[in-house]
């Protein structure tokens, strides 16, 4: 029983890694209506910026802040220069542009900082919290706490502030939003900037335990998509809970179902996405799409 609880707790801790990036994916979808396949790479790049600053002697928290600011600005620039021209046209063109961005950012990071792993300083104290015989690292607790705070802030932003409302309007119906005076272009830029900032936050949270290199987010991205899909692409809390569920089921399957083993345990979250999206595409927490006849 203890082992079971420990596996569950470990699953939540691992799931939190996916959740951090999933929040960025959800934010960008909610505020701009597009999916950014380069989200993970942009997050990785910003994390490198934080690392470079810290390595140059800047105090860690300032370095992280610097990276967040960089990411925010970069996100806005990317939206304005790269995404805006293709926004209105074919959605597939948008996919290919984000794919091109993925390749460019990944390569550029490798060219600038090389391909060997870097140690990213820990944001949280070392140590383990124990309840009974189940343990959870302080770092994991810290990540979970930050996630929940972010979820809360996003909820406040989108439901209680006029700017959040404007962002949602700009995403769901740009032409109608323009009619009521919403500066759609600026809202889209803001959305991308915020999502990029969240991605950078995800990167700095997990870089210590995953070790920083150009492949930091490559493996995480698919799991984050799974978590966001399960939770509902327009729900921040859904992204977090969905990612946790993914982490836990994967851990349980890997531990207890021998025929699955570690090599096939990735099929568990994939199977979950498949079932959820076919049965209830809006996910657990999302609002179902309503199409007018």
């Amino acid at each position, binding site marked *: 029983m203890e082992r079971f609880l420990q596996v569950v707790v*470990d699953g939540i801790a691992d799931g939190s890694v996916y959740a951090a990036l999933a929040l960025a994916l959800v934010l960008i979808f909610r505020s701009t209506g597009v999916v950014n396949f380069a989200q993970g790479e942009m997050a990785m790049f910003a994390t490198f910026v934080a690392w470079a600053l810290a390595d140059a002697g800047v105090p860690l928290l300032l370095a992280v802040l610097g990276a967040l600011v960089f990411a925010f600005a970069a996100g806005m620039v990317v939206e304005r220069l790269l995404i805006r021209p293709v926004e209105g046209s074919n959605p597939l063109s948008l996919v290919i542009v984000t794919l091109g961005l993925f390749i460019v950012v990944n390569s550029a990071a490798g060219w600038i900082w090389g391909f060997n792993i870097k140690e990213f300083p820990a944001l949280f104290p070392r140590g383990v919290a124990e309840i009974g015989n189940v343990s959870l690292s302080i770092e994991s607790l810290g990540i979970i706490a930050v996630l929940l705070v972010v979820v809360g802030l996003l909820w406040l932003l989108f439901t209680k502030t006029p700017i959040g409302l404007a962002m949602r309007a700009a995403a769901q119906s740009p032409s109608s939003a323009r009619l009521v005076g919403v500066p759609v272009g600026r809202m889209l830029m803001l959305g991308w900037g915020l999502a990029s900032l969240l991605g950078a936050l995800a990167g700095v949270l997990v870089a210590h335990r995953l070790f920083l290199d150009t492949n930091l987010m490559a493996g995480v991205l698919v799991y984050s998509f799974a978590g966001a899909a399960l939770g509902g692409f327009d729900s921040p809390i859904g992204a977090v809970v969905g990612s946790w569920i993914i982490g836990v089921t*994967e851990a349980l399957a890997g531990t207890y179902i021998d025929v699955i083993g570690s090599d096939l345990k990735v099929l568990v979250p994939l199977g979950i996405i498949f079932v959820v999206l076919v049965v209830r595409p809006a996910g657990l927490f999302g609002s179902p799409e309503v199409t007018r006849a």
Partner: protein
Amino acid sequence: MILPLLAATLLLAACGRDDSGGGGGGGGGSSNAPGITDTTVKLGSSYPFSGPASAYSAIPKSLNGFFKKLNDNGGVNGRKVQFITYDDGYEPQRALANAKRLVEQDKVFAIVNPLGTANNLAMRDYLNQNKVPQLFVATGATVFGSDQAKFPFTTGWQPTYQTESKVYAEYLKSAKPNAKVAVLFQNDGFGKDLLSGFTEGIKGSGISIVAQESYEATDPTVAPQVKKLAASKADTFLDITTPKAGAQAIATVAQTGWKPLHILNSVAASKAQVLKPVGFQYAQGIVTASYFKALDDPQWANDEAVKDLKADLAKYAPDADPTDPYTVYGWLVGETIVQALQKMSSPTRDALVDAAKHLNYNSGLLLPGITVKTDGDSDPYPIEAMQIAQFTGQNFVLKGSVIQASSG
């Protein structure tokens, strides 16, 4: 609809026009020996300059510096080496395309040190069918060199994964004869090859494998697998990982409080690239096997070969990282290539392969007691020995003596 296709294919046909059918590159080259003249020899290779395995691009960086120095000093047998490399992104189909380009368009004399098990498998048939040397492949897969009858133009170079794992098995038999081993391995040729060599090596002894977990190169972290292995309470941990996963494994072992004898395979056992980011305090006692000297190892600080290499790197490959073991690897490969070029009895591909299969020399960069030796079909593997080293304080300290473990 058809017209556009016409335009495209006319363009293609135009650039496809080839002047092949003539001789090899440069004057004096007969169709028997493309890519070699009295003053130059062209060599080619395929490496992952982009993609998930791009960390290995340290090898061509170093090799390029090596050839620069060689050419500065007159080349080998009066021939300067031109080394052409292409990026394959670690994809076998691109590696094969690169090999064909090197042979057909660049007309290289030989393909040397291409990287990656699958990549080398992809080009092996083509190169052997066309009698092009595929020498000193950059992979420890035992299969390269084992089938001399079918693939006579292919040789290995580094200690094979099976050699390495047998070295670990030998070490364990004396250090911990009844060890209970938990294994973490990358789910690909490298991981499985090492695991099977180890399993072979411990047969008949008191050592047993009590748990094993695999991981995919694309997994974000190996922490779950390591935690599962920790729960097995094994007293030995055989860690067959690549650098990033190796670092994660070391960190997770420390976190769980599991204290096994941690055997870390050589690919992940770099002090500067892996142990330092994790933290030396968590790496104490880690055992690995090595076959060459590390440039940041204080025990070799006054070693002539090491000092020379540091100076050479500063001069000829200033952007190469001296603390990266693959920098030394690349330089060593260069030395072997030159040995083969020097010894070949005539400027033909057959002679080059023959020279590569009859090597016998020492390098100051190899650990004392380890030589580069091949002997035709009976001994196709150039390096078959390694020595155990254990991480103590801030460095790997060599233990015992060199262990010979043939792969054949």
